[in-house]
């Protein structure tokens, strides 16, 4: 009873729970709305019982001054990628980069170092400066364009980690902003282009130069990269601010189902409920964990074949061969949901490593996220002014080409392409009698 009251109180104090509640209020039926709090409370109670049974909660230690006097000798690397947000249909200009912030606080010289580890500025289809192989697309949807950008960013981030390993960097820690292993299912879509030979050779020199074109597909190249990263001598963690799914809770329940502690029926029913109410790890763990507490990692299979991957296909088999990911959580601050910690190996020094993540997050007390990742995020981000400038430049170039052509239809097309996203004056309905 006490447990129930305690959790209910926590829910009331918990801002992100109410955000979700409001989301449900907008999207779900009235019945779902009414049940939301009660259901979440019940799921949290059950999850807490299982977590306690599995002895997964650990208390982390942090005393500001003492912590930093001990850890000032550590060399840490923080990695993040940035993509420009230029949105132009057709052959889009693209700029992507991945940056590293490397810092050793007690170093006498070169205490900190900002490195633009991977940069690409060019056009997706420019044969002289290409990232992906040219594909003869019948249609070029925004969705595909965004997928290409995402794919490029993910591969650049992985390539940055690979580069540090290849250069034999002596890091005590390496952190990636975002999941260490991204979900690859979106890239299984038919027609997704392969990277050029040049790009793959430069990013991942260990991939066999003579291998076939398939090896340059995102999924194959990424798998190779992750397998390489898994062998790293220094610990590498992916840090995710908010979880939009519930991999930890689902896997925990799954493990208990396998052990026979939970019946198949109960398991299926609770998984259905979690999906129905869009309950995520963040929501549950935010009310279970207190500030400075962490959950020991669980091994999770991240790559699950969705509807785009046909059962028994080559992609399904490939996705099965991706390494499993160890997922843990740390509640770094009273105000924020726990951050997700991903690694490809079980942490050798779990408590020390998690305490380091907690310590670096305490420097952002309100945001509750490792400050080094905040720093590298600002460094790697492609600023708006750069995106805007490249868009302006591209627009001018396109219009000039069209005007040179002297064909009215080409000019109209150019104008439409440029104003696709906004309701430009050029596309306004014409009043009066149409011609």
């Amino acid at each position: 009873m006490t447990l129930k009251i305690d959790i209910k109180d926590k829910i009331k104090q918990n801002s992100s729970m109410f955000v979700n509640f409001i989301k449900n209020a907008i999207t779900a039926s009235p019945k779902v709305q009414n049940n939301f709090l009660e259901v979440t409370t019940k799921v949290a109670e059950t999850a807490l019982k299982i977590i306690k049974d599995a002895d997964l909660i650990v208390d982390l230690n942090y005393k500001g001054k003492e912590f930093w006097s001990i850890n000032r000798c550590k060399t840490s690397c923080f990695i993040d990628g940035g993509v420009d947000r230029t949105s132009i249909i057709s052959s889009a200009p693209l700029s992507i980069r991945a940056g590293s912030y490397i810092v050793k606080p007690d170093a006498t010289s070169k205490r900190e170092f900002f490195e633009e580890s991977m940069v690409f500025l060019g056009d997706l289809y420019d044969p002289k400066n290409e990232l992906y192989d040219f594909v003869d697309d019948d249609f070029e949807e925004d969705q595909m364009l965004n997928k290409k950008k995402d794919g490029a960013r993910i591969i650049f981030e992985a390539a940055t980690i690979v580069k540090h390993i290849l250069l034999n960097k002596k890091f005590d820690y390496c952190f990636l902003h975002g999941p260490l292993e991204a979900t690859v299912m979106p890239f299984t879509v038919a027609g997704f282009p392969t990277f050029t030979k040049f790009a793959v050779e430069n990013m991942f020199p260990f991939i066999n130069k003579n291998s076939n074109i398939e090896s340059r597909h995102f999924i194959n190249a990424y798998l190779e990269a992750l397998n390489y990263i898994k062998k790293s001598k220094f610990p590498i963690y992916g840090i995710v601010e908010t979880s939009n799914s519930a991999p930890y809770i689902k896997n925990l329940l799954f493990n208990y189902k396998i052990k026979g502690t939970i019946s198949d029926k109960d398991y299926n029913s609770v998984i259905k409920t979690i999906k129905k109410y869009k309950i995520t790890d963040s929501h549950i763990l935010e009310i279970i964990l207190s500030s400075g507490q962490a959950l020991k990692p669980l091994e999770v299979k991240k790559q699950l074949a969705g509807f785009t991957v046909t059962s028994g296909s080559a992609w399904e088999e490939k996705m099965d061969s991706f390494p499993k990911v160890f997922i843990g959580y740390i509640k770094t601050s009273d105000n924020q949901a726990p951050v997700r910690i991903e690694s490809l190996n079980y942490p050798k020094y779990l408590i020390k490593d998690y305490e380091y993540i907690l310590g670096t997050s305490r420097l952002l007390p309100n945001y509750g996220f490792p400050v080094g990742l905040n720093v590298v995020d600002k460094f790697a981000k492609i600023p708006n002014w750069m995106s805007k400038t490249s868009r302006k430049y591209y627009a001018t170039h396109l219009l000039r080409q069209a005007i040179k052509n002297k064909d009215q239809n080409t000019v109209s097309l150019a104008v439409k392409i440029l104003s696709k996203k906004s309701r430009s004056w050029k596309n306004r309905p014409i009043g009066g009698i149409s011609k």
Partner: protein
Amino acid sequence: MSKFNNWKAIGTVLGETDINEYHFSLKNYKAKKGDIVTTASRLPSTDGTVIPVTVWGKISSIERFNAFFPAEAAQELTNEDIDIRDTILPTTKDELRCKVIILGYTEDGKEKISKLLPLNYPVMPAAIVKYPSSKDVEELFISDLDSSHPISIGNLLARKDVEIKIDGDNLISRHISVWGMSGSGKTVFVRRILTELLNLKYPSFVLDIHGDYLGFVQKQKKYFPDNKVKLFYPNLSVRAEDKEIVYTLIDKLGNTLTDPQKDFLNSLLEKIKYEGGSLLQYIKLLNLKAREFASSGSTSFKNVKPASMFVVARSLRIVSKKLENMEQTNARHRRKMSHLKFEELPDSATEPEKIISKGQMSILYLRGYENLPASAIVSIVLENLFRHRQEASEEIAPFFTVIEEAHNFIPSRSENKDDIPSVDTIRKVISEGRKFGTGVMIISQRPSRVDETIASQCNSQVVFRIVNQRDQRATTRDSETLSNDDAKQLPNLANGQGIISGQIVNYSLPVQIKFDEKLINDDIGNENFIDTVENWDDKESVKLRKKFAKDFADINEIDSRRAN
């Protein structure tokens, strides 16, 4: 070949520019606020060709920021007493962004740096910003000043080796205001100007309240052997035409009078004609006459009862007493400096050449006088001197007047002291002075308390440290060339550092005024009162008084004892 190529690159022009200002990213520690910088540009010329030019500007502000240092990290560092260098927070990502006010451009390809011309085409974004050599900056200033009588006042604040000169001709004809808190450097600047005017043999008339300029008298023989430095004490002499000033003085210094009493005073002034001479004697005469009329029950004044006449007589006695006290106070101060030769101020109406003469500086030592009598004296003297310049005979040479503590002589309308006699005189001198060569320098620590019309007629300004926001606003209100960025700098200026602007320099420049230490008045002392008290010993008279006081106390004590 342009000199531009020889200067060091210190930054890059940012974003959008216009013809008045631009921003640039500065290399660490390569320039300071107030520095002069350049950038190469190309302009369309009047004949349609494009010409290469050098655009000159002044750094008016510098922002330093570390976008990689989150504000909330500071909270944790403070709460936990953590040294940032122990943490993973970045310490080297500072960025410097400078705002540059464009001064103008010079054409390239000329042997000498020409006069600055107004820019009419924006500088190029992404252009290199360079740091010109001190020699070239000085050359620019001299060529731009284009003055036949340049006066050296110090150096550019940001660069010790760049001498700053002002235009002497504009200084003495177009009027100048000098603002700044007490001890900020106003007097240092005025001494500098007066020194240069002595060197030019240009006459000056200084209204000295505190004795700040007596150093000129002390050191005249040594440093200005070819000049005369005269030291005057006030002589309250009036003429028949000064009736209004006399009335105001009596009205303000004496008791408050009722309307019938004021009528009597007016009639008295009409009746008792005065042919000129000492004001004190005149007031004493008025007092005597008022008493006589009151005692005799005179009926020559309509509706004025003898009682009212007595009140006026009493008021006149108070005024004469006050004037006597002021004269005595001034004399006491003069006696302390017995080694200096004080002369009675000659009659400015009849002997103006004794006050204004080529190569002469005249100092009127006003210490001890209250504002109103001091204002009356200044009004009478300046009125006379100005009249002599106005007249076709031109009995005196053009001269330059220095008015210290100007808020006492030309108070703002908001002070409700419009009837101060010197306001109208100075307003007239300043508005017509350009024609007649009677330039004025007004000096105050409270610019907001100075008459706005007079202040705004000063075409040049020197502003030293000012903390009071009302006074800061007043400085920008009265100036056409002092920007808000300049005003922001005012509270942070150190002693002797000021911003000079207006027609004497063409644009506002932060300067360090040259300190003429040799001209300090040795008699003023260093105001170290703690040392004075430490070495204090009572005078013999005081010792004696204390001794007697003890004796009398003993007598009183015995006297008050109860008898057995």
